[in-house]
């Protein structure tokens, strides 16, 4: 089966319970580092890209690029989710458009399967 090498998506960043536990444990804790370097993709997105749980993907936005390990999430097609943390912040929009609030949600991005 031929897989699509890259898809366009919308990036949402946000809280997860494990990310919260990681913040309380310390930013150098394994739980924090692991949780913040994961991306959640929908089943159909994973199928399209020929990915399985734990595979590596490259995600790029107009603001930066990062590598993440994927896990399946209950998401609509075309939406990806990354827990708050330094890896996600390489992709978020730093312009606040006069509001003080950077763009942490609803950011257009590309998801590319990395060669293993």
């Amino acid at each position, binding site marked *: 089966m031929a897989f699509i090498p890259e898809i366009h998506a919308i990036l949402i960043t946000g809280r*997860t319970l494990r990310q*919260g536990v990681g*913040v309380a444990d310390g*930013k150098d804790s394994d739980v924090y580092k692991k949780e913040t370097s994961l991306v959640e993709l929908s089943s159909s997105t994973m199928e399209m890209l020929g990915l399985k749980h734990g595979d590596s993907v490259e995600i790029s936005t107009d603001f930066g690029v990062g590598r993440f390990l994927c896990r399946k999430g209950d998401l609509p097609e075309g939406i990806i989710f990354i827990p708050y943390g*330094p890896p996600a912040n390489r992709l978020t929009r730093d312009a*606040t458009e006069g509001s003080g*609030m950077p763009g*942490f949600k609803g950011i257009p991005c590309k998801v590319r399967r990395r060669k293993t």
Partner: protein
Amino acid sequence: MRRLENIVCSFCGSLCDDIVLEIEGNTISKVRGGCAISRSKFLSPIDNEVPLVDGKEVDFSEALDAAVEILAKARHPLIYGLSSAGSEAQAAAVKLGETLGASIDSTSSVCHGPGTVAKQLVGLSTCTLGEVKNRADVVVFWGCNPVEAHPRHFSRYSVQAKGLNTEGGRRDRRIIVADVRRTATAKAADIFLQVEPNGDFQVLTALRAVLSGNELRGDTFGGISRDEILNTSSVLQDAEYGVFFFGMGLTMTRGTHYNVQQALSLVHDLNEKTAFTVIPMRGHGNVAGAETVLTWQTGYPFGINFSRGYPRYGPGEFTVTDLLCREEVDAALVVASDPAATLPARAGEYLGKIPTIVIDPNYSATAKFARVFLPSAPIGVAASGTAYRMDQVPLPLKKVIDSKYPTDCDILLAIDKGVVECFAYKVALSMTH
């Protein structure tokens, strides 16, 4: 072994005040009643850090002198963070900001700041979490995920909690969740509105239109069908007492404060039909306190500048991301926060280019490149103080074990004293020439 009851956990804005701690010597050995995050918070060892200047261990007083020198020399310093500090430290930070002519901002600007701007425009029909527990029969969670971010919110206040008029707990409530993702919170809902990314304003506008008796033209609104809008509108109006919780799904998406303005207006409109209130689902344990303290001290809740000797308010101008990305500050004092891990990369990286001072119980990502690191006693564990719950109820945080380090409040007051002395010396020196 000591057993302490009714301890407040200050990690998130729920400020659960029913935690039981068992203490052996100067160590917390057991946490009962808390969530997974609370257990991690209380069981994490304290006093593991040392004062640092340029990455080298120094005496605490030497690190304090270095911090004073940096701030006294700065032309436009930034004071940032504060949302995991006690309200006493927040007041001390405002005092220091005024002494320095600094900009001062809390993490509010990158969480609920736009909601606060909307609050200033529309007003807030609000209530306490006690009222939610005792009265609310319709509960809306819009763009927030308490199951993961406020793990005991459901059981203590909003969903399973049993109260005077809600004796059946979950059975007596209708739960509405609006979110882009089908989150763990959404899975507990009676009605789930799966909103398109950046579609919240449209959905809220459609709900307001129906409430005011207008006919909807179109089939979907921000990803929600006409039938879902009509059904949701009817459930909202049928509430005996409704509560609308909102999170960063509204404040961080396109439209920011306009989204929240529309949500607060919806609640305002609902009060024409029934009783409805709204509570921002605040994240950090005392971010509500940061806004409260800054407001009573300066008149403004965040994004404040003292360079003219009086406070000026400027979201988008004096807020942390803007000041750092535009490289407008020449020194930074970070209190109980970790901007290098939480702000967009460009903003965090600029902190490494200017002299940065970090006051924090933990060695954070920001501390790694800070010029000065001052460890402090963790609030609510080894330091007492006050924190404001998400519904603006102030709660006392207890000191349950001892730390060898001072509180962040004492450190801020000591820095302020040092800076005042430096400035007085500069004035005296200028008068002798």
